[in-house]
């Protein structure tokens, strides 16, 4: 079965720097790979989706890349701000909209 792995449990970076989060999948290439933000005690909030045939997707300060050879997606936040501090979840949207989430990476942006 598909496993979504986010190897970094936590990432601390200085305000203004670019945060890069990694997501690896173990089995088949997801048709859609999603990134969500989750704040403590709250539900995930959808950020970006990238399709299997797309290399890169951008939205404001966010960028997602998808490398099917490496079985990896990278999530970048440029010019990071303390308000970006949260847990970021990578997810595979499977059949019938079943979403398989990774364990998440907790990002802390230090002022």
């Amino acid at each position, binding site marked *: 079965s598909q496993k979504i792995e986010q190897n970094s449990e936590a990432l601390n970076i200085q305000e203004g720097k670019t945060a890069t989060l990694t997501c690896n999948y173990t089995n088949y290439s997801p048709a*859609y790979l*999603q990134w969500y933000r*989750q704040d403590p*005690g*709250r*539900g*995930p*909030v*959808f950020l970006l*989706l990238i399709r299997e045939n797309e290399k890169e997707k951008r939205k404001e300060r966010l960028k997602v890349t998808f490398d099917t050879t490496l079985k990896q997606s990278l999530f970048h936040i440029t010019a990071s701000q303390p308000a970006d501090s949260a847990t970021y*979840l990578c997810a595979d*949207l499977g*059949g*019938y*909209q*079943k*979403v*398989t*989430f*990774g*364990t*998440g990476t907790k990002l802390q942006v230090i002022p």
Partner: protein
Amino acid sequence: EPEVTQTPSHQVTQMGQEVILRCVPISNHLYFYWYRQILGQKVEFLVSFYNNEISEKSEIFDDQFSVERPDGSNFTLKIRSTKLEDSAMYFCASSPDTSQETQYFGPGTRLLVL
């Protein structure tokens, strides 16, 4: 902006009791989901629901669980006989029929089974 709502925000119950968690999906959405997140662990898919039927369910969603859309607005998750290990945050989500890639999550119900 429309959003998914869930009630109650917190629920404490005794082991063996039945609980019903309620969700009001976004009004024009047709696909509905339940997820759970045990404290400190990842979000896990439970079930998806479309056209008054379960589309897919995980191995977690056993006979103790059921879902229902009793009217045009509510979507419920029932746990018949709660166990200690059912303690978790339960999230409802919905998505529109033409944009299935994006799911909108509710704020969650924190269930504690004693």
